[in-house]
């Protein structure tokens, strides 16, 4: 063990990483146009709070690029700034896309916010009247109401009553409200009906997905140890950072990173990946290695089918392969008998010692059904014998190839 290393410094570093990676608030604004959108949105909403400008704005962008994060931050700041002057109503398109339900939820949240009694039995009309009256009273008391509609595109179904009602009340003098829609559909505003669109104030904030460079910058920001006074172990930090830059420059690391990013671009995913890597940190040397990242990737991207294939017996693999062969022969529907025939053909062509009797094959077939590597095509014919029911393969061909390669029992070519 080197002289600069002690348990404390590694422990400190790991704590620091964990804190950074779990509370991502310091990292989020590194996303592309997050800070720009943040200031725009804050300008819009604070205008609503202070100058009674009724605005409606859409935050558009693919998932995981910081839309909600920016909104939450703006809200937090505004609430801090003007405490007690803002009430927030949150709706989600997945939960409240139904008009009645949405209005009920609005009424409920407004009641909660202002400590009023809420009745579950109120009808749609009553709730909408209540909402209008409430908005008016809030405006008279200089209080702003901010409606946050998550999954905005789902509200744009059917008659769009909720949106119409909300946006129509924003037109009246006696209201002080803003509608913020969040959607991952870039054309969300085109989904609106024409009279709703006419009332919408067409503010759009675009969030672009982070590029690989952005993510790399973010990664560096997350993992580089500070060399100033905040982190006491300077020598260790310097060494750690040097090692990290080495890793980042490495070609295979870039492959790993792109492997992670290709699946999911979101920051959350990346941070999860880093967290796993940091958890694997070698406590002796105290340095990250490429192996850490590799294990992190494999633990993130688990492939259950491959693992099941690894456990399969030779006979089961034979059966799967014969099904695969049947499929490649454009045979759409097959049952155990067909598979059995194919298996026998296979054996006739390449005779090996792995020839089993029909009974044993049937057992193996049942086992495959149990493990859900294959399944019946339909639910019909419950009372037909097992051998005659048509089945289908649930393993893709490339997965089967992978599985055969990695399987310990598979006979070599």
């Amino acid at each position, binding site marked *: 063990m080197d002289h600069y290393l002690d348990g404390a410094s590694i422990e400190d570093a790991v704590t620091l990483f964990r804190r950074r990676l779990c509370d991502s608030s310091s990292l989020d604004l590194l996303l592309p146009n997050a800070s720009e959108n943040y200031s725009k949105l804050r300008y819009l909403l604070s205008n609503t709070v202070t100058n009674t400008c*009724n605005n409606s704005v859409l935050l558009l962008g693919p998932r995981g690029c910081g839309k909600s994060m920016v909104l939450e931050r703006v809200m937090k700041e505004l609430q801090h700034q003007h405490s*007690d002057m803002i009430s927030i109503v949150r709706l989600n398109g997945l939960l409240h896309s139904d008009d009645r339900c949405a209005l009920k939820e609005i009424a409920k949240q407004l009641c909660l916010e202002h400590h009023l009694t809420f009745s579950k039995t109120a009808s749609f009309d009553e709730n909408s*009247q*209540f909402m209008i009256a409430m908005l008016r009273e809030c405006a008279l*008391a200089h*209080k702003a109401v901010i409606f946050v509609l998550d999954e905005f595109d789902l509200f744009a179904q059917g008659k769009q009553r909720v949106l119409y009602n909300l946006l129509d009340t924003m037109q009246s*003098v006696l209201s002080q409200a803003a509608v913020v829609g969040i959607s991952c559909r870039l054309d969300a505003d085109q989904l609106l009906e024409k009279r709703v669109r006419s009332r919408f104030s067409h503010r759009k904030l675009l969030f672009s997905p982070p590029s690989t460079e952005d993510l790399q910058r973010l990664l560096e920001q997350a993992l580089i140890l500070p060399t100033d006074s905040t982190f006491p172990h300077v020598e260790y930090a310097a060494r750690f950072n040097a090692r990290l830059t080495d890793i980042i420059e490495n070609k295979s690391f870039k492959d790993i990173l792109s492997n992670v990013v290709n699946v999911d671009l979101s920051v959350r995913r990346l941070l999860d990946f880093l967290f796993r890597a940091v958890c694997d940190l070698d406590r002796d040397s105290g340095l990250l290695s490429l192996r850490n990242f590799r294990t992190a990737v494999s633990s993130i991207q688990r492939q259950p089918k491959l693992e099941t294939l690894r456990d399969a017996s030779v006979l089961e693999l034979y059966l799967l392969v014969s099904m695969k062969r049947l499929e490649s022969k454009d045979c759409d529907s097959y049952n155990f008998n067909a598979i059995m025939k194919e298996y026998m053909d296979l054996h006739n062509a390449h005779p090996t010692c792995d020839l089993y009797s029909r009974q044993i094959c049937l057992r193996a077939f049942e086992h495959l059904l149990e493990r859900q590597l294959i399944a019946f095509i339909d639910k019909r014919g419950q009372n037909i014998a097992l051998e005659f029911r048509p089945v289908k393969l649930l393993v893709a061909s490339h997965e089967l190839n992978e599985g055969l390669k990695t399987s310990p029992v598979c006979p070599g070519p």
Partner: protein
Amino acid sequence: MAERDSAVHTPLPPLSYSNKQKSHKSSSARKSGPLTPEPLPSRGQVTKRLFFAGEEGGGKEGEKEKAAEDDLKTPLYESPPKKPKSHPSTDNENEEKSSGPKSKRVLDFASTTKSVRRSSRLQKPDEVEAPTSPLHNEPVKSSIRISAKKTTKKQPKSATITPARHKPSKKSHQRARRLKCVAQKTEHADRIKNKVTKKACKGFSKVVFDGVEFRVGDCVYVRRQDSSSDSDEADCEECQICSKVGKGIMVECDECLGGFHLSCLKPPLKQVPQDKWLCPYCERNEGNTIQRRRRRKTKKTAREKLLNSQLWAARIDRLWKEPGGSYRFTGRWFIIPEETTIGRQPHNLKRELFQTNHFDDNEMESILRHCYVKGPKEFEKCTEGDDVFLCEYEYDINWHAFKRLADADVDEESNRSLDSENDWNSSEDSGEDDFEDEEEDFQEKPVKAKSTAKTPCSQKSSLSVKAVNTYRGCIIGLEKIGTKKIPDRARCRRQTDLDRAKATLMLAASPGSLPCRNKEIDEITGFVMGALAAGSQCLGRCLYIHGVPGTGKTATVLTVMKKLRAKVDAKVIQPYRFVEINGLKLAQPENLYKVLYEALTGHRVSWKKALQFLNQRFSETKQTSKNDCQPCILLIDELDLLVTRNQSVLYNIFDWPTRAHSQLIVIGIANTMDLPEKLLPRIASRMGMQRLCFGPYSYQQLQEIISSRLNGIEAFEKQAVEFVSRKVAAVSGDARRALELCRRAAELAEFRVQQCSISLKTASNELNVSGGGTLKNLVGMADIEAAIHEMFQAPHIQQWFMRTLKQEHQRQHLKSLQPLFHSYAQIMESNALIGTHFFPLVVGLVLVGFYFVNQVLAIVCRNYN
């Protein structure tokens, strides 16, 4: 005593208020001790105590006990230093001082109406300058004398109106006067009694009292019982420097409200300053204004007294005569900022009052004279007179919360319909009781200025567990919402032209008039007037209005209705009902029956019942009550939403007008031009007779709309407005879109100006381009272009563009805004954006083609017709 009083009151804001309450209780109890029949309180505990006080005969000890009790129960109020209210010596003092209260009252009034003091908030100096200056005080004095004489003569005459029991002796009069300020909180019982008798002797709309006319809705000073009598009241404000009255124009300090002669100031002012003005004392920040006052005089004007809480102000809500013969009024109190729980806030104006939700019945005797409480806009205009106050907020005394008073012109609509309805009802069926219980009726009456939710009674019900989002005639229980503190930003005015432009361009900002829709307004007015004039013979009057969104359909109809309402008020046309229903705000089409029936009768029933009743009502040949013969105008917005499978709702709506005596006039609004044709023929034949098309706005019209909104604000370049209107007219002709575009452009321009000023400050030499001509505060073409790009371009193109721009930006390490625009142009030119360049061109050509074809078609149609 007055000095001491103010000294006591100002530091302890809530104190005076509780004092007020208590004085109400104790003395009202004394007055109506045995009379108070049952403790039906506006607020439970209060009356109970009151009742006790009555029993004990208002003894001092009992009072103190009660005070202690009060303090326990309402810990928000600090315990007040009790004044010996019923002490004989104070009575004597009062007696001495107010030897001739009635003549004095007239005198006060005369003096204040005539004397034009000065004005600080004076916006137009020419108004005051010439005529009033040195002379104005002389005639006032003479008039005082005269009026004083007159009133002494008139005394018997006014006594015919004043209750007889004030006459006999000075002492009894004095007692009456003491009683008058007493808030009768007990009065629920009383009120109901009054209400019952109201049918016999109605509330008056005006009462001439002591030769002064008081109307319902007037604001008055109300004497306070514990304050010293009004004999020490100054007629007129005197100059703070020379201590003389009259002699030239005076200017008011905005801080201490002291008056100063223009000529007494050093250096003398020539004119009354336009904006805020501080007197030399306040400017030097000499805090001890009390000292200055003491130096002056002992007399105080009514305004000073009010602001020192020696007087109260109230708005008369109702005037009536008691069976005993005394005239009484129900007043809604105003309070000064010191009396609120939060005390005076720094941004409260000196002349600011708050309207409370606190009502009391008092005798007319307690009224001192008129004062004038105005809304912010009127207050701004009203620059002279000492008795003018500003009231912008309502203060809820139960929740200690402020709420803005709704703007008059907005509130008017609903109130007036209520009022006129009431009038109509009362004049038509005086004998009939159309309300189930009397309390409800009572609540309706005094609260005209506000929604019914704010009477103490409804407050009580809100304290119970009833939910707020269920509808029982009105939504009650919302008075809790209100700021504990008025934010100071509400006071600050909009500074720059751009700010004001943004404010007027908002969709929520109500335009004063609707330009470019005169023809349609005329047509709708003609239709409605014709239908109303036809009276019971009007059969099948339906109007179908169609047009694309944002062309002012609903706004136009509402404007017409507003105008007609004014005509009804002027008794030009007969009253009618107006019911507005929006198809998209109904949960299901059938609910329309429910809403309509409720609007017509005030009862809530299920839609099936409502349909049945409505069918009955409209098909009946003989009307049951006279009330029903009011014609009803039904406006249905978003008519296409009411189409059901068998279209029965629409059929019913358009069938009722064709029945005899139904007196129903239907105006339907929808977007599609051919809605009647899509419907069943039997509906189409009923509704499609009269149609009105709101075409999309042309660019000239849009230009006019925008410039009428921006009237007097120098914020937009002329070409920019034209550019917006042409752009929008080419796409949709939607006024909302044009306004939003302009607003966004204004925001962008503001941002640009900010950036420029910052960059100019930091490095003026670096950016020589923006330093010169482009630093204008006007919204230009570039801003509009950017706004259009931002708001109406497809997001994926924008996203692509942003990414490219960013890369370019990073590559060149450009930092400032100006090169960014350069790179914008470069990208547009260099990159493969030829497609997007051509695209608008093609679309434009196609549009031009369409336009041309349209024009030709229109001409052909016209010729054909």
